[in-house]
């Protein structure tokens, strides 16, 4: 069920790109950051479970995302696609080095008191791990929540309208700077969930970010732009592809994932479930 984790990775990226056409090159590093903030808090508060850690880190990351967008990234948005890429790339480098300074290069992880290795048996002799299942359910719930947010709420309408035509959106009384900042804040909240599930599942090191950006990006493209269900599907497809690859040969796991991505680009570049706009 690696797919659930990849879907979580991808959703924050899809959110920022969907609302602002902004590709956050530091996306993977932000997931790692969230994981390390949780790990740091866990070191300071031994006995704090992952749910409590999530509750503590979420508001911090939400606020950080809002401030980052409002203070820095809003200034990079315009006709040129380069400034946001350059700024977030720089941010990625800074993040990795700051984490390296604080935590050193040792990989660390979070503990859920044994939950992460528990499994239960399904009929037919299949054992399902608790953590992968919870991860998948979280990804499902988040996809549902984001779809409902975008489709049914005033904020979601503002997101869609601002994404279509920021100038016309301003003419309706929408403060686009605030809307963009909320989108990034929300993306950072999703990133936090992804980061904590990541740290529960495996060890995290400061330099792991770029690989996760790649998986997130592939999942978004495979799934298709414009729909969070698509992003969920893309994450699952990528996860399954990698799992198949790992089965064939431990060294091939990641490669098969990349191959699946390339095949998708060749056969159906718009992804599995694109929602065409304009």
């Amino acid at each position, binding site marked *: 069920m690696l797919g659930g984790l990849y879907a979580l990775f991808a959703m924050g990226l899809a959110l920022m790109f969907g609302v602002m056409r902004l590709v956050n090159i530091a996306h993977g590093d932000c997931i790692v950051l969230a994981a390390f903030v949780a790990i740091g808090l866990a070191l300071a508060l031994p006995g704090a479970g992952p749910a409590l850690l999530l509750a503590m880190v979420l508001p911090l990351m939400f606020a950080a995302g809002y401030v980052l967008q409002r203070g820095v990234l809003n200034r990079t948005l315009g006709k040129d696609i380069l400034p946001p890429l350059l700024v977030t790339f720089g941010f990625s480098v800074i993040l990795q080095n700051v984490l390296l300074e604080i935590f050193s290069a040792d990989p660390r992880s979070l503990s859920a008191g044994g939950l992460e290795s528990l499994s239960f048996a399904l009929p037919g002799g299949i054992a399902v791990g608790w953590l992968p299942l919870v991860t998948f359910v979280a990804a499902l719930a988040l996809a549902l929540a984001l779809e409902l947010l975008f489709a049914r709420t005033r904020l979601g*309408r503002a997101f*869609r309208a601002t994404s279509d035509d920021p100038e016309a959106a301003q003419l309706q*009384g929408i403060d686009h700077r605030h809307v963009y900042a909320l989108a990034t804040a929300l993306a950072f909240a999703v990133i936090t969930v992804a980061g904590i599930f990541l740290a529960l599942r495996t060890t995290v090191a400061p330099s792991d970010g770029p690989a996760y950006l790649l998986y997130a990006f592939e999942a978004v493209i495979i799934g298709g732009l414009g729909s969070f269900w698509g992003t969920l599907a893309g994450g699952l497809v990528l996860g399954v592809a990698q799992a198949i690859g790992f089965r064939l040969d431990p060294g091939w796991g990641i490669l098969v994932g990349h191959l699946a991505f390339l095949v998708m680009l060749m056969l159906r570049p718009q992804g599995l479930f694109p929602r065409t706009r304009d």
Partner: protein
Amino acid sequence: MSALLEARGLTAFYGDFQALFGIDFAVEPGEAVAIIGANGAGKSTFLKALTGLLPAAPECVRFEGAPIGGLRPAEIVRRGIAMVPEGRRLFPSLSVEENLMIGAHAGRAGPWSLRRVYELFPALEPLRAHPGNAISGGQQQMAAIGRALLANPRVLICDEISLGLAPLVVNAIYNSFPVMLREGLTLVVVEQDVGIAQRATHRLYCFQEGRVALQGQSGALTRDSISKAYFGT
């Protein structure tokens, strides 16, 4: 000092290019005022300056007595000026009904609601679930006007609403104006069609190369004087 919305000596620039050279303009509560002029005369530029899409000196635009020049568009909408932009600019990712609802984003109270907009433009109701751009030009124009009405503005600005529409459709849309005026709205319309502009409004301004070339009572201005002002002869 009683004008609801006025511009005094308004200048506007696109970078180094000066588009407006000191526009004086005023509209009283309950009036319908037209702005006509050739392409490039500065009409849309003027509207952009009024609605905050272009920078303006604070004192050069006054609304309800307060300076609003240079304020952000969202703030100007909140204060009570809404615009139907040129080309409609409905949101494709939103349905017709969602497009109308987003007009109310600023949350101003007033007589306009979704129900009242459907009463004014009955053709829209069966289309409510269609994507904003999957309807005809005339329907889009009605939806764009409805969207602006839902902001419950005091002043509604319409930028070239007859563009690209059949005369029958344009007439039907302009027939909604008396209803709006009865609800206490004040209207500013930029129009290419001089005849409609004269028939639908109380007063009229003619712009020419970034200046007001002529103004007066819509019914009293002669074709000849308008022609001279329009083309700058």
